[in-house]
């Protein structure tokens, strides 16, 4: 069992805190819960205006992309801070899918043209792999026939928002396919803020970007690792909002938050959230440094999913009847947390990965 040579940097730098403040200000002004709920019932569940402000206005779409490719040359640590804030607002923008997952796939292929387009934020990319796929797990592919792509790929997140799809094919290559060259059939998602679609390719033209396997693996690993920061944002909102509510809400002539049964539940939740913060920071730092990355990402992701779900379930229960209403935003967070618990590999899939990486082998069969 190897011990890390150096401990990861688990704090936030001043620059990261400044970035957080800027993103939070923008989301406070342009991504209130009522607007998010209203948008989930509209034809465009994601918010193109908000995306434009984040991506073009603040340059956040290109954080992971080197400056020579038109990006900011920042690291996963900064992206993690952005995702914490997007999670805290359950923002309906394709940030994780385009600026992290699709971008990482393109970085693996070093495709200058698409990287520059994604960096500007004017082009949105989506990796055409099921959202449930764990890093290292097998994934469905399109068929290459007569120089064009055929087949059906399911559960592709944010495909409806994308301008370009990155499609793995059965010739082991990853292809760039214009979104308007395929049929995207929206499915009704549990999490309305992260739309899913089935992508049908019927002789779609594609441009080969390079080998699919390493690109998809890298993309999903970054997606899984940084999803923990989104889940941290979701859990942190649930805790903060529930504590605030329980200080105000009175029953039996006392603030509900003064009852010990509830205090202990919230204190326990707080402990889970601060622990998730350490795990998510470790994953972001490991993705940045490349040190101990596989294990740190798997640890963070297997810990994050149950905590985010628990936090939002507690928030719902402790808001009483209000928590069951469509009007109160807690359901947005519960749905995001539950869907996130399946995204880029379930906690169980990541626990299996930990078992392998930490040398805790499964019993021999029999």
């Amino acid at each position, binding site marked *: *069992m190897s*011990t*890390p040579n150096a*401990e*990861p*940097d*688990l*704090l936030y730098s001043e620059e990261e805190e400044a970035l957080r403040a800027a993103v939070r200000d923008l989301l406070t002004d342009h991504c209130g819960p009522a607007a998010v709920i209203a948008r989930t019932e509209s034809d465009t569940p994601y918010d193109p205006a908000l995306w434009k402000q984040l991506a073009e206005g603040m340059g956040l779409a290109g954080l992971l992309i080197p400056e020579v490719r038109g990006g900011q040359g920042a690291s996963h640590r900064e992206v993690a801070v952005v995702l914490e804030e997007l999670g805290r607002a359950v923002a309906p923008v394709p940030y994780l899918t385009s600026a992290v997952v699709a971008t990482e796939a393109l970085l693996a292929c070093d495709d200058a043209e698409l990287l520059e387009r994604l960096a500007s934020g004017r082009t949105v990319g989506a990796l055409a792999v099921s959202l449930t796929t764990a890093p290292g797990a097998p994934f469905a592919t399109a068929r290459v026939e007569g120089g064009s792509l055929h087949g059906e790929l399911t559960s592709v997140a944010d495909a409806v928002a994308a301008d370009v799809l990155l499609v793995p094919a059965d010739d082991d290559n990853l292809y760039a396919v214009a979104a308007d060259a395929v049929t995207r059939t929206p499915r009704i998602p549990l999490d309305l803020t992260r739309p899913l679609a089935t992508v049908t390719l019927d002789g779609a033209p594609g441009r080969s970007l390079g080998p699919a396997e390493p690109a998809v693996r890298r993309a999903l690993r970054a997606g899984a690792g940084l999803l923990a920061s989104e889940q941290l944002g979701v859990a942190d909102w649930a805790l903060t909002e529930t*504590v605030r509510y*329980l*200080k105000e809400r009175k029953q039996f002539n*006392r*603030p509900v*938050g*003064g009852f*010990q049964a509830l*205090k*202990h539940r*919230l*204190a*326990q939740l*707080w*402990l889970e959230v*601060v*622990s*998730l*913060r*350490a*795990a998510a*920071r*470790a994953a972001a730092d490991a993705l940045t440094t490349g040190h101990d990355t596989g294990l740190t990402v798997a*640890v963070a992701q*297997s*810990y994050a999913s149950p905590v985010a779900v628990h936090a939002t379930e507690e928030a719902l229960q402790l808001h009483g009847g209000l928590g069951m209403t469509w009007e109160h935003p807690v359901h947005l967070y519960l749905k995001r947390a539950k869907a996130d618990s399946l995204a880029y590999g379930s906690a169980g899939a990541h*626990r*299996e990965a*930990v*078992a392998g990486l*930490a*040398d*805790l*082998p*499964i*019993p*021999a069969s029999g």
Partner: protein
Amino acid sequence: MTDAAELRRRTQELLAAHPPATTDRLGFLRARFDAGLAWVHYPEGLGGLGAPRSLQAVVDEELAAVGAPDNDPRRIGIGLGMAAPTVLRYGTDEQKARFLRPLWTGEEVWCQLFSEPGAGSDLAALGTRAVREGEDWVIDGQKVWTSSAHLARWAILIARTDPDAPKHAGITYFVCDMTDPGVEVRPLRQITGEAEFNEVFLTGVRIPDSHRLGEVGDGWRVAQTTLMNERVSIGGMRLPREGGMIGPVAKTWRERPALRTHELHQRLVKLWIEAEVSRLTAERLRQQLNAGQPGYEGSGMKLAFARLNQEISGLEVELRGEEGLLYDDWTMRRPELVDFTGRDAGYRYLRSKGNSIEGGTSEVLLNIVAERVLGLPAEPRTDKDVPWKDLAR
């Protein structure tokens, strides 16, 4: 301003003047204290240089690199972690000069006389009396759960000096001489078979007023310094991966495939992950403290480690199969340290039951987190303004 380079230079000077190879251990430790390199964040003349606390690592690394003798922070943990910061904050110049050097070198071991049979989590309910007689205070009462009492030269003690005041107001803080004839230490045997703790009976113990820490009646506030430092030291540990209880279990799992079952595998991997996340949380707290941004995580680390230790050690007993039915040694021993790794799984299982009780029960700590960290309303208090003598006991 003392910086890292300055500390390195001073450390090299110390090593040149007192070569570890030809200096006895105690002599070296005393010289290190006098050079201000014991705890660099303490004031000059008291073992420090008024330097940032984070720079201690510079000195420690330089000295460790040449194998210089060190004190034994685990053996003298109560002195280092609880008595010293309290003496530093509330002690007179004479008290600081008298107590801090032998405390740090380990020449004098300290214990802590806080808990009583009737006052555990409700510490301010304590009934040990201190009555003023001339220049002395005369102490009568009983304390419990006192580790190291049989080894200690000094104790930090809280006692009631005003039974007519409400329970938090009538307490005073003292340094008690454990060699006083009125101090009787009796081993307290535990479920593990060993006697790690003691009961301490105090009968007419005389403490000079010059050994009082802080003002008369201000003992509760002084004790808060002690308790806060206890929590920081519990939360500020640096652990390597698998450095805690999960280590021996993972080792057994790797070495003995015949013991593996699928059900145990699920539980083991889940606990391994939780142990690693708790380790990272403690590491984040350490980094915050070093960066001068103390976080609240310390209050939670003890809760997390207590639960983890209990779950992991419980799993370990099951993992061992038939061996799990056995125990290594029921002899009544008097260990100086809690030695989790030197004993068998059954010992770890039983001893870890204390982790959610000692130093504040998990239930009380959850209240503290809820009230001080999350700002939730405090528990209703029926004892706050009532004179201590009128409270039901």
